[in-house]
């Protein structure tokens, strides 16, 4: 009987299915590999294996004849390949540079500190020439100061401004488009707001740099042209379409029966949208905001161009500010491959990864909770 033959997939269907599976796994693998790569480069910082101290044991130049090549290579901080390419004259010069650097730096009381240790990365320190302990990010000064607090504050400040500016606008637009607008208005409003997402961020940065900065300066009358406000507003323009699009979908997928029930009870369309549809769509709306947060945290070009990039600790949005992303983008190309600056930048990258990952995870929890409470499962 035909019963025994069972259902076998068509070979082409099987092939397509495998293909899709492969693509999906590759995507997951890629994310994983990128994380592994970033984290591996940052690992020495996490493990405390980097050392940026300028005061090191200095060997006299004559020692180069008695040391083994491996010891010499390690002493000069070179890779095996770099070491092989150098002739003896260059090695001698490098050793002299090292001695010179050590004598010069040792005048500074901070020269002996390993500034990549966690207490200097996170905690304040009273550097030479400072009146009180401070959080300083100055990786290219004589003493490499790697305090990440100003960058964290910068990132959070700009993100906060961006979200405060964009979320109310995007949610308002989403409520209007999904609940109140006529079909005709909806047909052109939705795609045009989503078109904002298509603007390259470098163009947004350009716009912020030339137009927004001037406009906002005239409006608020502050000193520095580029600051967290300008960057945040420009960033908000990039966040609006993300939040709008997802929030609009969430609001539109609220069953029409809720709307009908509310209207039949005598609520106005506005009351229905605000009191019934919005709460019902809350999990989706919340997801939209979290995605907007992720976008704002990770955006680089706009903040690089519009924030002014001064790594200072300040609560004011009218002060120039520097974000984690802009720091990585601006500095990575200038670092010594494998050096402590390089490692610290990768540590910042890992930190960004962790921030977005944790915020997404937490958001997932909140959304599940909201949904189950709404469906009466708790």
């Amino acid at each position, binding site marked *: 009987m035909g019963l025994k033959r069972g259902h076998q997939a068509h070979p082409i269907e099987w092939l397509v299915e495998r293909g899709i599976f492969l693509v999906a796994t590759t995507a997951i693998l890629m994310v994983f590999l990128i994380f592994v790569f970033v984290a591996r480069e940052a690992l020495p910082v996490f493990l405390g294996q980097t050392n940026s101290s300028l005061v090191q044991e200095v060997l006299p130049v004559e020692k180069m004849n008695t040391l083994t090549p491996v010891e010499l290579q390690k002493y000069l901080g070179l890779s095996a390949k770099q070491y092989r390419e150098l002739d003896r004259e260059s090695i001698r010069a490098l050793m002299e540079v090292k001695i010179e650097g050590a004598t010069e730096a040792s005048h500074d009381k901070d020269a002996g500190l390993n500034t990549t240790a966690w207490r200097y990365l996170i905690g304040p320190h009273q550097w030479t020439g400072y009146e009180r302990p401070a959080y300083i990010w100055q990786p290219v000064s004589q003493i490499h100061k790697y305090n990440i607090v100003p960058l964290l504050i910068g990132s959070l400040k700009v993100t906060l401004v961006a979200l405060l500016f964009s979320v109310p606008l995007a949610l308002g637009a989403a409520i209007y488009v999904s609940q109140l607008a006529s079909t005709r208005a909806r047909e052109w409003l939705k795609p045009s707001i989503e078109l904002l997402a298509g603007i390259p961020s470098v163009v947004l940065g350009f716009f912020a740099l030339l137009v927004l900065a001037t406009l906002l300066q005239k409006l608020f009358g502050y000193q520095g042209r580029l600051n967290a406000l300008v960057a945040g507003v420009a960033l908000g323009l990039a966040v609006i379409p993300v939040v709008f699009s997802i929030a609009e979908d969430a609001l539109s997928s609220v069953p029409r029966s*809720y709307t009908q029930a509310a*209207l039949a009870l*005598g*609520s106005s369309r506005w009351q229905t949208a605000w009191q019934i549809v919005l709460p*019902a769509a809350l999990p989706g709306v919340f997801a939209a905001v979290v995605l907007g947060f992720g976008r704002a945290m990770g955006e680089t070009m706009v903040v690089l161009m519009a924030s002014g990039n001064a790594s200072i600790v300040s609560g004011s949005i009218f002060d120039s500010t520097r974000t984690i992303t802009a720091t990585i983008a601006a500095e990575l190309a200038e670092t010594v491959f494998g050096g402590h600056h390089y490692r610290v930048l990768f540590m910042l990258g890992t930190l960004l990864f962790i921030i977005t990952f944790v915020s997404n995870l937490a958001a997932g929890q909140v959304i599940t909770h909201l949904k189950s409470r709404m469906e009466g499962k708790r």
Partner: protein
Amino acid sequence: MTEKSSPQIALPKVAATSGAADAAPVIIKVRELSLFYGAAQALNQISIAIRKNLVTAFIGPSGCGKSTLLRCFNRMNDLIDNVRIEGQVEINGEDIYSKEVHLIELRKQVGMVFQRSNPFPKSIFENIAYALRLHGTTRRAELEEIVERSLRQAALWDEVKDRLHTSALGLSGGQQQRLCIARAIAIRPEIILMDEPASALDPLATARIEELILELKRDFTIVIVTHNMQQAARISDHTAFFYLGRLVEYDATTKIFTHPAVKQTEDYVTGRFG
């Protein structure tokens, strides 16, 4: 076969369950009502008068316009694009399509229960309190009192009194529908429109809804659309039969189901078509 609707407003000629029913005052008066969805005509010159404190059933095959007519009574059709309405609907002598009519006031007077139960994704208490707050009741004690009264009236109180503050979506289908009825009666409308309120429920839940309707009749005027002929026979005082957007026959329910005046009505109620 279809009878040309007369300019006169149809009123049941024979006493319904008792002589008193016949004498009940008219609460909804529809005069030559036509409704168009774009170019398609859904209602054709309907004239009908519905009496107070009775259950009036609208029956007819799908697409006959019975739900559309029901939705004219609280102007829910206004929500649909491209709807055009001609004619008059009067409730308590007031033209509800006149410009001065406040939709919110109209819907406070004319409540509605839908085919699929549609409680809000809020707690049981909040479902009813929402309706009350809309119409200006905000004191907590008053809210609690009316919520309890409405739930009792909807025969739901004993089942939910211990979990008033849990989500309404956790209730069974029949309970949800009774909650929707409780929500509708909480704001004390005069008329309750029911659009196939039991069609998505099992027989037991249906029986409870029907019992409830008979209870509610004392305080409210009920207009119910139903596909279930037995249901119409069991619970209604008057029945109107619609076909292709026209009112074919409107009379006391006993008359419609035993001696209908029009052949088409007889064919439908005996199950020969539909």
